[in-house]
């Protein structure tokens, strides 16, 4: 058991007081583990024949800890399993194997009724602000839905809280009865954020929340996310492929490639001195907004991302890695600890 005991949690739910002031949590100190993933595996069926069923290995043997109050970023290219991992962690998808501890409590295999109380503490913000809001519900209904689901039946009370939330995320209250299609992408994303914080959650999975937005809107939303985190002591799992955004928002970064973790570490350290070759190439590849940094011949990764249906044996990255040795092709690298960082590579850069 980490921070607070189960009883306290139950009390919180009983009171339903999360809607009132006492729902605001004390500022976390960033030491306690909020969520821990233990050797998570998620596979999807991908057709094949009955005798030889094919599987997409979306997440393979991932272990990580998310500390209270921090922002952990999951970084990787498409198909690396970062979104799947995020959804598995809050049980929108059931893991194939492995365990998830939320405040020291195993939530994999927990009955839906039992989990319902914890569900409100973990919310998700989606990438596509167009698809994530029901086009036939008004803003008030969308933001009010979580409140309604958790027993705030009184219309007036709910409306008051929704208006409060709208103010919080920067949507004017007179838009209470508008429909999603009347808003721009950034405003919709704000609505999605309001819906996610409505239940005073502790953990929010941000699944590429700004990658569909324009640059000028992107910075507005990032600032908002940061403000909210400060105000409510939220913990974020920030999923993104954009390393510059991650650099801005994350305290720690976890780099993933093809379903497995490459490297986890503090943002500044990891950006300053990548230990996994993949991290380095990823950082190199970002087009930087400064023409003086262009170089004639960039050190680029060759090749494509292998298919997650038939991932290469050994180190997942070995087909693209320029430093590949024999052992990389055969053995899955173990975790090397370098200071506070963890690297999964046979020959970490150093």
């Amino acid at each position, binding site marked *: 058991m980490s921070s607070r005991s189960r009883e306290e949690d139950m009390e919180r739910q009983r009171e339903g007081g999360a809607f009132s002031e006492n729902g605001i949590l004390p500022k976390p100190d960033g030491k306690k583990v909020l969520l821990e993933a233990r050797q998570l595996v998620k596979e999807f069926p991908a057709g094949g024949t009955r005798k030889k069923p094919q599987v997409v290995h979306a997440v393979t043997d991932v272990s990580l800890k998310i500390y209270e109050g921090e922002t952990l970023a999951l970084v990787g*290219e*498409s198909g690396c399993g970062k979104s799947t991992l995020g959804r598995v962690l809050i049980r929108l998808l059931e893991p194939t194997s492995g365990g998830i501890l939320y405040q020291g409590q195993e939530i994999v295999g927990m009955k839906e009724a039992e989990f319902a109380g914890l569900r409100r503490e973990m919310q998700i913000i989606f990438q596509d602000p167009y698809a994530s809001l029901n086009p036939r519900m008004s803003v008030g209904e969308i933001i009010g839905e979580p409140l309604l689901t958790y027993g705030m039946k009184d219309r007036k009370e709910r409306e008051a809280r929704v208006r409060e939330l709208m103010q919080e995320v920067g949507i004017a209250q007179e838009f209470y009865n508008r429909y999603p299609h009347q808003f*721009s*992408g*950034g*405003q919709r994303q704000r609505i999605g954020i309001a819906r996610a914080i409505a239940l005073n959650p502790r953990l929010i999975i941000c699944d590429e929340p700004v990658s569909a937005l*324009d*640059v*000028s*809107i*992107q*910075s*507005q939303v*990032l*600032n908002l996310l*940061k403000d909210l985190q400060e105000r409510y002591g939220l913990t974020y799992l920030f999923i993104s*492929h954009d*390393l*510059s*955004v991650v*650099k*801005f*928002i994350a305290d720690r970064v976890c780099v993933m490639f093809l379903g497995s973790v490459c490297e986890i570490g503090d943002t*500044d350290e990891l*950006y300053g001195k990548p230990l996994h070759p993949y991290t380095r*190439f*990823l*950082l*190199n*590849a*970002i*087009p*930087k*907004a*400064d*023409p*003086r*940094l*262009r*170089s*004639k011949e*960039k050190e*680029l*990764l*060759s090749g*494509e*991302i292998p298919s997650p249906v038939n991932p290469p044996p050994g180190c997942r990255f070995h087909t693209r890695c320029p430093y590949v040795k024999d052992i990389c092709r055969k053995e899955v690298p173990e975790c090397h600890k370098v200071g506070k960082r963890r690297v999964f590579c046979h020959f970490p850069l150093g």
Partner: protein
Amino acid sequence: MSEAIVLDIRNLRSHFFTAKGEVPAVDGVSIQVPPGKIIGIVGESGCGKSMTAMSVMGLLRYPGRVVGGSILLDGRDITHLTKKELSQVRGNEVSMIFQEPMTSLNPVYPVGKQVREAILLHQKMGKDEAKARVLDIFCAVGIPEPEKRYYSYPHQLSGGLRQRVMIGMAMVCRPKVMIADEPTTALDVTIEAQILQLMKKLCEEQGTSIILITHNMGVVAEVCDYVYVMYAGKVMEQAETFALFEKPSHPYTQGLLKSIPKLDEKAERLYTIDGVVPNLLHLPKGCSFCTRCDQAQKRCFVERPCLYETAGSREAAGQGAGCQGQASQEVGSREAGCLEAASHGVRCFQYEGGGKLDE
């Protein structure tokens, strides 16, 4: 401007005629494309950058229409061509690649055949000869095992390979200008870097000019020679790339550059441009950026600024060349040719001192 301009877009205006009114999607855009250069058009969604490209390609569909201006390709106006003439130009002299290669490739034909079709459509050539040509171009755009890929269907290729095929198809007739509309937006970072590198290489080797449309300032900084920043259907600032990033002059450009999170510094908060892009139907009376501008003056709300040349932009260009010399001698010299033509234009009253570049 120097006389060697391949594609000269002059005061182009394309409007959409919708039920709610006439939408000026492209509102007096002038763009010059010199040979063998990469021109960047950068802006947020709805700023008219794609519509400009569609207008050039003659791909605007009802309710959109080019209502004014001219598009000169090698001195020939291509705005009022017949369908037949247009199809001779399109794909042959000017070609285009799109953001999502999957939708631009026909899923039921092998990609090699599709590229071959593109050749046969425009050039008199035997089928075998054309195929050889396709294999050549596949090699040139870096497709591994071209012989095998020739018979692959689009869904069998990864996003990066598909984009390479598209580029191959666009390059196969050695066009004078290739328009790339967000060519790397759907791709991963490592693949994006490969594609950008490829485009740069092709541009240098084949002398094709590229108009690169993107929202990503990083991509612009990486490959473009000259940049046009668009906002609400108008060019807000135009400059040689180094000059633009060195000294962004329009408040919008400045804001854009400031609001991007940087890799090399840790900021507590990001700079933001308040508000959202205005509705093109209800543009502000004055400068279209005035409602979001943090340097706006009284007159910005009532008068429309022209595109002014920044005072001393010629000298600045000279300095720019000098500073590139430090970065890389070779790049600097390559840039120099473009710099002569490059004037730094800004659509903002702050630069009224300089001469007008339009209207």
